[in-house]
């Protein structure tokens, strides 16, 4: 038999004896752990991604430590931002950020949803769909700085006129209102594309069931599609909120850079992002810089939380 031909050299002792084979069936061939240089490089690059994010977080925490130690929780609740006397507290900026972002979300809601419903339900393909998609892409593609520039020269004067005509003082034009309007336009593409994806996930079975009972398309959208997509759309707005909170340049240019707590939407103010943009290069003392970085840390935490929450909800919807 051919067994005779089998050489003896290089035998593994384990498999040597033919009678032991059945009992040693589970003695696997050692998979060659070919941890080549290349695989190590790949692993390193993935590790680099992890370290990058961890590094960003650790850096922010480390550099904020001075401010955190000095001001404690008062940094979040206090309203005084006084670089001359070294007293810093970020409450006005937190308010400015949340107010502009929430108002912008509310303002953009009908626009974003209209785009999402048209793209996700009415025109999934074809030339109308292409026009709408290009509209969304262009809106998303224009840089923040250009939104800010045009708003500063065309939107802000309009707001100023409005303030003057209503007798609102001081009529600067630069205000929370201007920032809100610019922001709302800028986040339309984000909320629209997330909502569109969710709307497309609605099973056609459900829709067909409704159509078969004589429902109009409007009724299908209102009674079937939107309720089904509700939590996903909400998640989309969480993601958009994260975007709005982190948006810097356009807001910086039109919000008016005032370090006091805003009392109305016509007041100039600052957001967390805009105070950093405005004052980071002027921060001459250690505590000043550390306070600005702590604002950055808060910004980081807020955006990461909203991002994760939104993505978690959407992933859960994709699964089901």
């Amino acid at each position, binding site marked *: 038999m051919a067994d005779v031909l089998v050489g003896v050299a290089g035998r593994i002792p384990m498999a040597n004896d033919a009678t032991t084979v059945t009992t040693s*069936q589970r003695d696997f061939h050692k998979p060659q752990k070919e941890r080549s240089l290349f695989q190590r490089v790949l692993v390193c690059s993935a590790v680099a991604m992890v370290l990058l994010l961890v590094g960003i977080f650790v850096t922010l925490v480390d550099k904020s430590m001075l401010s955190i130690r000095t001001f404690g929780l008062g940094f979040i609740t206090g309203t005084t931002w006084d670089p001359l006397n070294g007293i810093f507290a970020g409450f006005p900026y937190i308010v400015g950020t949340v107010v502009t972002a929430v108002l912008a979300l509310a303002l953009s809601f009908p626009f974003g949803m209209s785009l999402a419903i048209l793209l996700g339900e009415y025109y999934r393909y074809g030339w109308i769909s292409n026009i709408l998609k290009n509209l969304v892409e262009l809106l998303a593609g224009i840089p923040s700085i250009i939104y800010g520039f045009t708003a500063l020269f065309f939107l802000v004067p309009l707001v100023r006129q409005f303030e003057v005509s209503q007798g609102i003082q001081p009529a600067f034009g630069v205000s929370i209102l201007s920032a809100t309007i610019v922001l709302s336009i800028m986040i339309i593409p984000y909320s629209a594309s997330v909502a569109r994806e969710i709307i497309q996930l609605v099973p056609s079975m459900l829709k067909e069931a409704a159509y078969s009972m004589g429902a109009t398309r409007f009724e299908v959208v209102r009674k079937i599609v939107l309720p089904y997509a509700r939590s996903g759309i909400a998640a989309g707005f969480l993601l958009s909120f994260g975007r709005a909170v982190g948006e810097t340049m356009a807001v910086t240019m039109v919000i008016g850079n005032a370090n006091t707590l805003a009392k109305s939407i016509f007041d100039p103010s600052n957001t967390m992002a805009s105070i950093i943009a405005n004052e980071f290069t002027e921060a001459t003392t250690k505590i000043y810089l550390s306070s600005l970085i702590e604002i950055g840390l808060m910004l980081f935490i807020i955006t990461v939380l909203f991002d994760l929450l939104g993505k978690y909800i959407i992933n859960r919807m994709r699964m089901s």
Partner: protein
Amino acid sequence: MDSTILSTTGFNAFFSDNHVLKNIAINIPKNRIVAMMGPSGCGKTTFLRCINRMHELTPNAHSSGEMRLEGQDVYAMNSMMLRRRIGMVFQRPNPFPNMSISENVFAGYLLNGIKLPKPERHEIVETSLRKAALWDEVKDSLNKKGTFLSGGQQQRLCIARAIAMKPEMILLDEPTSALDPISTSKVEELVVELKANYTIVIVTHNMQQAARVSDMSAFFYLGELIEYDNTDQIFTNPKDRRTQNYITGRFG
């Protein structure tokens, strides 16, 4: 008796806890065509992939037992060196889309970083294509992309690619399952011609194909090698009832 090129004893393969090959013992003679057949899921493709250790690419796949190529322990070799000695042709033709026809034939050298002078390169390309019975059809378009060929031509290109490496064995994994009848017969003719220089193991789900092309046939069922004999013997006088059921079409 023929000289044996590949032999296994007590060979087992697992996917996680799934025992997919059980105690396989088989001797594959040199310069013969051996057909592996059996109903789907019987382990024939797994066995083929164990020969050049491609199954190791599947996560959680393990194997045990002995397998020797020309007396050398297959599982003690470097897997890359092993695979250079054994050519493989897949179910679906898979020429590299970024390479021309001649580059595809030469791919084994290109990918392994083996540099050869131009005349030698041309010679390898031409002889491989001739052996794969493709030369006349593509000799004027060697610099075109391989993906422009028909399915049957692509599969013969893949065979040429395997031959170019001057392998000792060629493994064919249902090489005609994606082809039309005419291309199939061309590939079958080619396989028979190749026998003169190479040992060929062909997995097929098609019994007629096994009967037409192979010298030896192995019948796998539920992970076991039920019967292995001369093809004539298997098809005219099978010893095992399960083999008989299979070739008479009573299951699978």
